[in-house]
Structures are given as structure tokens and as C-alpha cells.
């Protein structure tokens, strides 16, 4: 299964959420591979706490691989190479967790040629042989990278794929997330151009809300009544807006609550962070865990 993670805008928490989903999916016993296709800013290494590839790798990054500079992209086994002690031992029952970092200083793709798509197809095909899940972080907004993976997935009809569109719970983000999917040159539009059936593609897209502050959250206890009433009204308005833009509950796969740890440092949230050091909220870990199950749960992906 290929999961493409995209967001309408930068700063939505796409990378940190998708890495955490991948991490949780591996903890659930699946072999997971994370591909950093965010070529402009390949920082997945930092989130996995692998300092040697914190800003991408100098040799054999994905960018270099797609350009034909190496036969196989560099792989990082997170369970052995992470600098975080808590991540450096593979927990019993967990699957493999492998990162394919981007190239340091690679830059966004400025065009996609057929050879690049062929190499992308070859990579996805090979990874599918050995991993239960390949999470592909496809940067923000409309990009050549998104076009490349749309073309590659058309050429791999028997490999299942799904798209996660990450957005924050604000007016602008809701409108932009809808635009990224249904707007001119959006995913459906571009997908149809490359040979996807728009109806089928639509069914393979779900939204994930990030940094959500629920009106009844514990953090809001100290607020004045007026503030709470205002937040509630805003939330209702956003729900109505989301419904109108096709970003509402039915098209949503899950939401991740606002967590100070993720705001201040993009990192994996381990059970230790929740239970021992208590720096992260249990709800956040639970949300990632739930999403990690839902991405492969067919009932969450039935036709809309």
C-alpha cells in the first residue's frame, strides 16, 4: 500500500503527522517505509532523530535516485540509526521502520520527464515487495512531485494507493484543502489528465485535520465564558464551511489535537513521551495510533 501525504499549504504539520502515523503503524507490527519526497525541504531525518540525514543525505538521496544518479536510494534503519535512545531498540512485535531520505540541497523538482516517472515506478514496485506500507511525503501544494506520483500510480494498477490531505482547522486551510483536491490543476484535475478515473481517485482521498483545538479541550478551562462561546461559534462555522467544501466529517479520516510538543519540536511521540516524561498528551498518541489503523481499514475508505 502506498500512502501519499500532501497538504494545501506549508506549516500544516504534514511531515510530523505522517511520520508519526508511519511510526505507529510500524509499532502495530507492520513493515513501514517512509519516503521523503519533500525535495525542497527534506527534513524527515530530523523528525526521526537521525542526525546524519537531518537535512537529507549527500549520497544516494531520493532526488539523486530519481535523476538517475544512483542505482538505489540510500536507506536508514530508524530502529538502529536514530539518536533517540527510546527509538534505537525495535520494540517486540514491531515491524521494520526504514527512512529513505531526500538529497541534501536537492531543491524542488523543476520538471518531470518520463525517465523520472519510470524510476519512481521502479522504486514503488520494489518497495511494495518488502513493505506493508510506504508513506510518501509529497510536499505542500501543487508540485511536479505530486504530478510524478500521480503518473507513477497510474502505471502500477495493482498496487493500492491512498492520499491523505493534511490541513489545519481554519477558514483559509479548509478552503485551500478543498481547492488542492477539486480546484483547477488540483489532484482530481491533474489525476484525470494522467489517466486516473476522477471518481475512483476521489474515493482514495481523505482529509486529516491537524493541530485541532476542541472547544471542550482541557487547555481551554482557564478561558473566560465569552471566549469559550466565541470559539464554539467559530468551530460551528468552520464545520459548516468544511461540509460545504467537501472537507467535512465523511471525507475526514481523523484529526490530531494541538500538542505543545509538536508545536515546539517536530518529533515522533513515543509512549515514553506520554507515560514516563509526560511531555506529550495521551490524546495525541492515541490520535496517531487510530490514524495508523484507519489508513489500512477499508471500512474507513468506502465510497463517499
Amino acid at each position, binding site marked *: 500500500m502506498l500512502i501519499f501525504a500532501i497538504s494545501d499549504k506549508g506549516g500544516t504539520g504534514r511531515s510530523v503527522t505522517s511520520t508519526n502515523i508511519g511510526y505507529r503503524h510500524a509499532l502495530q507490527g507492520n*513493515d513501514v517505509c517512509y519516503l521523503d519526497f519533500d525535495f525542497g525541504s527534506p527534513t524527515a531525518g530530523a523528525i526521526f532523530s537521525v542526525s546524519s540525514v537531518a537535512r537529507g543525505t549527500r*549520497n*544516494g538521496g531520493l532526488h539523486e535516485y530519481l535523476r538517475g*544518479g*544512483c*542505482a*538505489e536510494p540510500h536507506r536508514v534503519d530508524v530502529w538502529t540509526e536514530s539518536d533517540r535512545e527510546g527509538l534505537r531498540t525495535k520494540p*517486540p*512485535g514491531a515491524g521494520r521502520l526504514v527512512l529513505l531520505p531526500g538529497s541534501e540541497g536537492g531543491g524542488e523538482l523543476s520538471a518531470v520527464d518520463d525517465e523520472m516517472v519510470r524510476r519512481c515506478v*521502479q522504486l514503488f*514496485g*520494489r518497495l*511494495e*515487495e*518488502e*513493505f*506493508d506500507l510506504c508513506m510518501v511525503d509529497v510536499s505542500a501544494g501543487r508540485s511536479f512531485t505530486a504530478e510524478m506520483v500521480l503518473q507513477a500510480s497510474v502505471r502500477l494498477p*495493482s*498496487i493500492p494507493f491512498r492520499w491523505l490531505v493534511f490541513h489545519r482547522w481554519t477558514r483559509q486551510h479548509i478552503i485551500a484543502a478543498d481547492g488542492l483536491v477539486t480546484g483547477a490543476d488540483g489532484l482530481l484535475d491533474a489525476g484525470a489528465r494522467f489517466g486516473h478515473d476522477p471518481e475512483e481517485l476521489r474515493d482514495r482521498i481523505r482529509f486529516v485535520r491537524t493541530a485541532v483545538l476542541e472547544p471542550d479541550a482541557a487547555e481551554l478551562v482557564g478561558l473566560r465564558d465569552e471566549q469559550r462561546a466565541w470559539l464554539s461559534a467559530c468551530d460551528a462555522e468552520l464545520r459548516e464551511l468544511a461540509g460545504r467544501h467537501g472537507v467535512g466529517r465523511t471525507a475526514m479520516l481523523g484529526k490530531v489535537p494541538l500538542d505543545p510538543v509538536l508545536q515546539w519540536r517536530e518529533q515522533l511521540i513515543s509512549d515514553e513521551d506520554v507515560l514516563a516524561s509526560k511531555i506529550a498528551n495521551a490524546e495525541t498518541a492515541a490520535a496517531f495510533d487510530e490514524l495508523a489503523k484507519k489508513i489500512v481499514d477499508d471500512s474507513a475508505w468506502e465510497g463517499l
Partner: protein
Amino acid sequence: MLVMGEVHTALLQNSGEIQEPVCRQVLGLMAGETVRVSRRPIAHALSPDLLTGVDCRLPSASQARVRAVGTVVSRCAITGGRVAQGSSYVRVERAAVDRRLSWSHYLSRPGVAEVLGKAKAGDLAAGFLDGAPPDCLDLGAISGRFLDLAQSSPLLDRRAPFRIPRTRLRWVTEVGEPSIRFTLHSDQVRTVRIAHPEPFTPALAALCEDLALHDWLLTTLLVLVERAGIGSAPGAQAAAKLAPAVDHLLHLWMPGAHVGESLAPYWESLDRRPGFTRQWRTLEDRVRDQVALNTLTLLSITAQTGRRCQ
């Protein structure tokens, strides 16, 4: 001087094993020539040999700049309709003249790469077994590409029963007193060094392909047994996770099935130490015992339920 090769082995990307006619089509996609098939003692289909022209540096342990020109032989194999292999090898020889000749010269010697200038066989062997640097001849990339061709055939449904990484086996043969050394490197990389008194024949490449196949089977069965979590997971769950091993792997162990009589002693020596077959049999028994135990548990549950209903 020496012969070097690399074999990539993988689970064929299909839900079940494929039959002989499909094997022929999957392997026949690559050229107009016929696919060689043998049925006994195990189904084995081999694609025609294909050549890749090369003119590049050879890997060298001392980082010496050694240039070679010639062709690499590659082929694909499917064993038991279940395991696919991409295999490439090249015979490295000294060129008669130290300059590049026309391609017709190299094409008349298929599978030979001629070294222009000086090179030491030991240095090249060590460099190759260490893994090719990016700008050198990469037999693994060629083997991987051929394996991709088979794996991406539209005749395969890509719903493999389990996920498992490919293994890579790099091998080198030289002329010398008979000996064989098999080394495990990382999770997926293995190396084999063979010294053989006779001049090289393709049968030696077939021996290495057979070793790669059995090493993959052993590696894969070990992974499946580990994933089953015997002892820590409930019996029924462990047995369910071992089911793919019973369905798809246990009947494939047939060391030396396609290895000539004269090369059989190499297999026998590896079977003495490290003892491939010994380890395989132990794992096989473990899988079968788990399945049997689970059957007994199920039978006793059924019997108890039956008594309660009476």
C-alpha cells in the same frame, strides 16, 4: 583472471505459484528466444541469456582505476513457480591490446569484459565483494533491473502472500584448489568466494544461483518464524502467521537440484558447515510442530464443546 556475478532473489509477486506456461510467458517477455524449463526434481524456468554492453571502471579494493570493456550476461529464473531471480555475471580477462576495440570484437566474446591496462585479480575480487562504488560496474543494478522485468509482468497479480526483502548474493570464482566460502553481511547481502581447478563454465553461475535461492529460502523462513512470535503470541495466531510458510516455502528446499555432478562437493561442504540443510530442517520441524500443536488445541476445544452440548 576471475569471474564475478551477483544474484538477486525475491518472492514472485503473485498470490499463488504460477504454472509452467505462465512462467514461459513471464520470462519470455524479454527476448524472442525460448525459455528453458526443467520439471524434475523441481520446476525451474530459465530465461535466455541477455547481454549488456559495459565500458566502465571495475571496483577495486585499492581504489585503482581499472577500466574494462565488454558484455555482461544476465538471465532470470523462476523456481517452483514461486521464487524469482535476476542473475548477472562477467568474466574479467586481460585485453590483448590496451585500447578499446570495435563492439564486434566484444560481441564475439559474450560475457567477457576485457581489462585495459594492469589489474590484480585479488584486488578486483575484494573490491567487488565489498560492494560497488557509484561510478563502477554495478552487476547488482543489472540483476535488479532484470528481476524487475519479471516482477512487473502484467501476468502477475502482485498480491504476494507476504512481504519480504530481496536478497543479494555477490560471488567471485577464481582458478585454484577447490574451496568455497560463504559470508553473511547485512540483512540482505551475502558473498561467496569459490576457487575451482577447472576453467569457468556457466555451471558455476548456476551453482551460485542455487546457493542464492536456498539462502533466500532460509532467510525468509527465519523471518516468518520470527514474525509468528512463537511462545509470546497465542498459539492460533502464531500458527496462522506460519501458514504462508507451509503454503509457499517448505516444499521448495532442494539443494543442488540443478547443479552438475562435478560441482556437488561445494554444496556438500556448505551443508557440513555452516549447515544450510540442518538449519532448514530444524525450522521446518518447528513450523510443523506449531501447526500440529494448534490442531491439537482446536481438536480438544471441539471435543470439550461437544461434551458440553451432550
